[in-house]
């Protein structure tokens, strides 16, 4: 049987077609990296339910305020954003068992054992006139403080930084050093 020669396909134009598609996708799509600070908002209190004040001990709470001219107060102390991190770190770790800093509660963490977990809560308050930039800068410092404490914890117990740890270890670190940032109900910090 005579071999039938298959005719060659003309494929020159596929490159053009692919180029057209490529240009189309270049025009309609974006490549920007989506990143930001992740937060969880508190549940809206039920209207029918009586709001029971969960009395947090005075020493367990630090109030971080930003007023309408972007001035920062942490624990009734005027300070710069750069000082906030150390203040928060001191507050959350309480290395010297200072009676004015938050108490600790020994909790059993699964897969790790007992660890004194701080009961400290950071309460962030802002004014309606606060600029978003200042607000994010403060939020960022708070996260940074927590992250550094977690890093220290991981380095002590697992010998590497938080990000290098395994999923389980990160979970333990998250439980041992909770990120208790409460964004308070809106109210005007500065009186009119």
């Amino acid at each position, binding site marked *: 049987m005579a071999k039938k020669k298959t005719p060659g396909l003309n494929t020159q134009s596929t490159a053009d077609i*692919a180029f057209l598609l490529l240009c189309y996708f270049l025009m309609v799509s*974006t*490549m920007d990296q989506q*990143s*930001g*600070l992740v937060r969880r908002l508190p549940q809206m209190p039920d209207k029918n339910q009586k709001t029971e004040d969960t009395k947090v001990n005075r020493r367990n709470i630090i109030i971080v305020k930003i007023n309408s001219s972007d001035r920062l107060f942490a624990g009734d102390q005027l300070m710069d954003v750069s000082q906030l991190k150390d203040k928060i770190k001191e507050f959350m770790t309480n290395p010297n068992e200072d009676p004015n800093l938050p108490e600790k509660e020994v909790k059993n963490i699964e897969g790790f054992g007992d660890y004194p977990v701080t009961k400290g809560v950071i309460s962030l308050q*802002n*004014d*309606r006139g606060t600029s978003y*930039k200042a607000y994010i800068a403060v939020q960022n410092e708070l996260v940074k403080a927590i992250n550094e404490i977690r890093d220290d914890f991981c380095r002590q117990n697992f010998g590497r930084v938080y990000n290098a740890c395994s999923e389980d270890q990160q979970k333990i670190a998250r439980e041992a050093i909770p990120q208790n940032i409460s964004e308070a109900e809106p109210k005007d910090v500065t009186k009119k």
Partner: protein
Amino acid sequence: MPIFKRSGKKDMPELGTSSDIVFMFLFFFMVTTQMRSSEVKVRVHLPEATEVAKLERKDLASYIYIGSPNAQYQGQYGTEARIQLNDSFKTTNDIRDFIAAERDAMSEADRQLMQVSIKADEDVRMGIVTDVKQELRRCSALKIMYAARKAGQ
């Protein structure tokens, strides 16, 4: 003796592989990029932050833009910071419908994981952001993200 011998037959260089290369490019862009969902009509210059986390699943995110309207809309909407949902300017009262619509578009399993990304300009005041936050709490869309640029970019 010539180093590059020209075969007498071929006048045209071989183009067969170029389409493969272009297709490769095409797939690369299709995988790494995402479709531009809506035209941003407000000025959004994100604030800087160092401790940012990446948005894990873009398909679960809804975006709320807050900023002052762009120049061509200022005649109509003024220069005060406005909220943009999808493609139009809205007020805080419309957020409820927006969230409900976004929820409906998701599959049952994903609804719990829905995340709202607040993209606010660094110059807006917290008043409007607080209003948005309160409204989100009322709609129980509690997972939010303050969009921010990684510092030094």
